């Protein structure tokens, strides 16, 4: 009996209880014509039965799923003879791995003890599943029956259902908090684990990064990664800010309505393109193109360069900057514009001396958000920036970034708890904190600005 069939059975039963509960509420007051004597509509009594049938049963099912595998495994291991019985640490992990593979049918073993244990485990699992189904069905039946027995003329079914709905809605909105806490805890715990092995000072201020080599303090110096990340983000912003800002100014102040309605969606297309497409484009088209241009000018250039990655990343951020600037420019009151023009200023003078100054805090907030994006962007740099941790400000050379290293350290086979894997979480922590600070700064700036004109 699989979980999904059990769930299906439970759902069918809940529906049945719904019908029974609804009919019962009508018969309690003596027929449809007197249904108005009930406190709530009959459907609420039905729903009450269905909810109390399904809810406890589903909770039991989830709890069972959480505890059953470790528990069964403990029993299986306990039933095994020496020396398997008293293994600890890594050997125990290996044994568990073997058993998992055996029960899943991925491997063959001639060891009779292992085979017997795997068989035992399989049996216990079957048994567990059967008991689970029985338990769930019983709980569902009891829940429904109790609710049915509670149905009376004055039972306040609707408020009860509404309270449950309210609780469910609160739980839904708590997911955001749980996610944030989950991110902080998971990244922080692993990072602390890392810092217990590698000194945080060596990590934050060391200048040598080559975690593939060994696992000592001096290969986890993350400064080259921070430098590379900042270099690429800088190149991206040098492209994105002027282009995005000027495009927004042109479209909102100069372009005719028709041009605006055609050009704006096309520019916004750039925001909808998946980053992996930009990465492919940077690595296969822009990179070689820049390289041949550089070589024709007699400059040597790495095939994976900060410039190619930064350039394409800048293009990715253009629509982001331009749409925020557009909002901010449009939020500047028309009276400021009219006043400046009436004094005889040209349009460009009005824009640069009045509108941009008024919109500056908002645009600055948008730029900060753009920087936070550039720092957190992964696919473009993974595909176009390179892996070597160079400390350089030369955009023609290959640099690596925080996100590239997170991907490199975590993709592929890996053992948890090695400093190499944990280093990725430490980098993730830095990334999370930095982007969080940038976002908060941007929000504060934008909020302050908004208060001025609303």
């Amino acid at each position, binding site marked *: 009996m699989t979980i999904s069939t059990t769930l299906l059975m439970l759902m069918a039963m809940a529906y049945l209880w719904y019908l029974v509960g609804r009919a019962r509420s009508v018969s309690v007051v003596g027929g449809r014509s007197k249904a108005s004597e009930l406190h709530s509509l009959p459907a609420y009594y039905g729903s009450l039965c269905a909810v109390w049938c399904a809810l406890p049963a589903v909770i039991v099912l989830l709890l069972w799923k959480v505890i059953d595998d470790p528990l069964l495994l403990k029993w299986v291991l306990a039933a095994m003879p020496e020396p398997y019985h008293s293994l600890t640490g890594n050997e125990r992990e290996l044994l568990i791995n073997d058993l998992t593979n055996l029960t899943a049918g991925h491997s063959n073993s001639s060891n009779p003890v292992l085979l017997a244990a795997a068989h035992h485990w399989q049996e216990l699992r079957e048994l567990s599943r059967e008991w689970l189904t029985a338990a769930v069905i019983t709980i569902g039946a009891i829940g429904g029956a109790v609710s049915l027995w509670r149905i009376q003329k004055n039972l306040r079914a609707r408020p009860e259902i509404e309270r449950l709905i*309210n609780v469910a809605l609160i739980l839904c909105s708590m*997911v955001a908090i749980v*996610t944030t806490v989950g*991110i902080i805890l998971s990244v922080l715990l692993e990072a602390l684990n890392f810092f217990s092995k590698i000194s945080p000072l060596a990590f934050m201020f060391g200048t040598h990064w080559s975690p593939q080599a060994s696992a000592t303090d001096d290969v986890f110096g993350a400064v080259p990664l921070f430098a590379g990340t900042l270099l690429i983000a800088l190149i991206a912003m040098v492209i994105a800010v002027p282009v995005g800002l000027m495009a927004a100014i042109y479209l909102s102040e100069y372009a005719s309505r028709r041009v605006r309605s055609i050009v704006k969606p096309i520019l916004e297309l750039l925001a909808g393109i*998946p980053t992996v497409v930009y990465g492919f484009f940077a690595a296969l088209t822009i990179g070689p193109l820049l390289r041949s241009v550089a070589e024709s000018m007699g400059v040597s250039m790495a095939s994976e360069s900060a410039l190619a990655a930064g350039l394409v990343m800048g293009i990715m951020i253009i629509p982001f900057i331009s749409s925020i600037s557009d909002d901010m420019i449009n939020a500047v009151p028309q009276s400021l514009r009219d006043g400046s023009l009436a004094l005889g200023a040209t349009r*460009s003078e009005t824009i640069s001396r009045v509108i941009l100054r008024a919109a500056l805090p908002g645009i600055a907030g948008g730029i900060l958000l753009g920087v936070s*994006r550039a720092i957190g962007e992964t696919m473009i740099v993974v595909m176009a920036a390179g892996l070597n941790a160079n400390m350089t400000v030369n955009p023609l050379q290959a640099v690596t970034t925080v*996100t590239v290293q997170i991907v490199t350290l975590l993709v592929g086979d890996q053992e948890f708890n090695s400093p190499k894997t944990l280093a990725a*979480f430490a980098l993730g922590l830095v990334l999370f904190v930095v982007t969080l600070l940038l976002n908060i700064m941007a929000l504060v700036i934008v909020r302050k600005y908004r208060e001025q004109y609303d």
Partner: protein
Amino acid sequence: MINTPDQTAQKVAASLKKRYAKEQRFKLYGLLAVAFGLGFVVFLFSTIIGNSLSAFHQSEINLSVTYSAELLDPDNTHDRAVLEDADYRALVKQSLQALFPEVTERASVRKLVGLVSERAESQLRERLLAHPELLGHSERVWFMADGRVDSYLKGDIDLSLPSDERGFDDEEVGFVKSLQQKHLTRRVFNANFFTTGDSRQPEEAGVLGAVRGSLLTLLVTLVLAFPMGVGAAVYLEEFAPRNRLTDLIEVNINNLAAVPSIVFGLLGLAVFIQMFGLPRSSPLVGGLVLSLMTLPTIIIASRAALKAVPPSIRQAALGIGASPVQTVTHHVLPLALPGMLTGAIIGMSRALGESAPLLMIGMVAFVADMPQQLSSPATVLPVQVYLWASSPEHAFVAKTSAAILVLLGFLLVMNLAAVIFRNRFESRW
């Protein structure tokens, strides 16, 4: 010194030319910025479409194959199992040697056989198993050409390079040329690309496996994120009291929307895989991670949709005695639903294009099989693009571009759906 009105007028007149020139320059900068953006869009799409064209066609080679009984079933058992295990490569070798009797050297023979895709073996096996009566007879069969032959025939191999550096040497070029002269090659529509999963051989690789992986992942994302997002939005917009807790929730939602996606991947790895022991590389974990990532988008869009429902609707419902929950479920939600669905589609299209967090949870594994279940290993379209883009074979460049087109096609359909949805069902008040 105070200027007389005349002097001022002169000064202004003198500076006017400069100021107008500056105005023109400023306007030109704006125009250039827009042109740069538009030019890049055109450049990007034309490059990708141009690169992808060749992936939709596939070269084939025609050979006369003899289903020789000595090679396939030497003991004359007529047993299906023997035919299933037989060496069909030998058949291909035999027919190619018949075409090129002068080729005898081992290395040359290997090159000759290498012209035909490895797919030929399974193609012949299926054909013979379906028609066992063919054993001992011969027929002409079109075989898929190897990826390098395909690249050569499409002109993608730079023949100016030295013979041994281009991965396709002069001898192989000679074989293909002689095949061409005998009209034994052709180019057909590459249906295979849309019907198979990934493969190490560029000519055999297709996107269907990745498309299915994406669909399964998005299914999980939608099922989890949409109800949760709508629930959260309804609570925050309709029921939540203004207090510290709701402020905290709002700050959290805004922050999550700006957290780099790769951090969600770290969360998925640490929590779903390490802590809960869910299967790596599975659409289930991928969908969980993406649903947490798209949740803020859906919540923000749903709240905007709820805000757009005029308060008079709520007041009217409350006025005739509906409870707050009834007001929301019977009146506000149905009116806000189109806006919420539009938001959900946009969130889903973001999730469809996302790859960084999925790299973290192991969806980059090479998966040749079609994913059947939520827990079986799978990959998704953008990750497939990433995997092919990192392959050295030249033929994968075209495949990558074609996969990008498929991905962009899905995104286009989803966004169009969102626009149509909004225009059709969203009421303006």
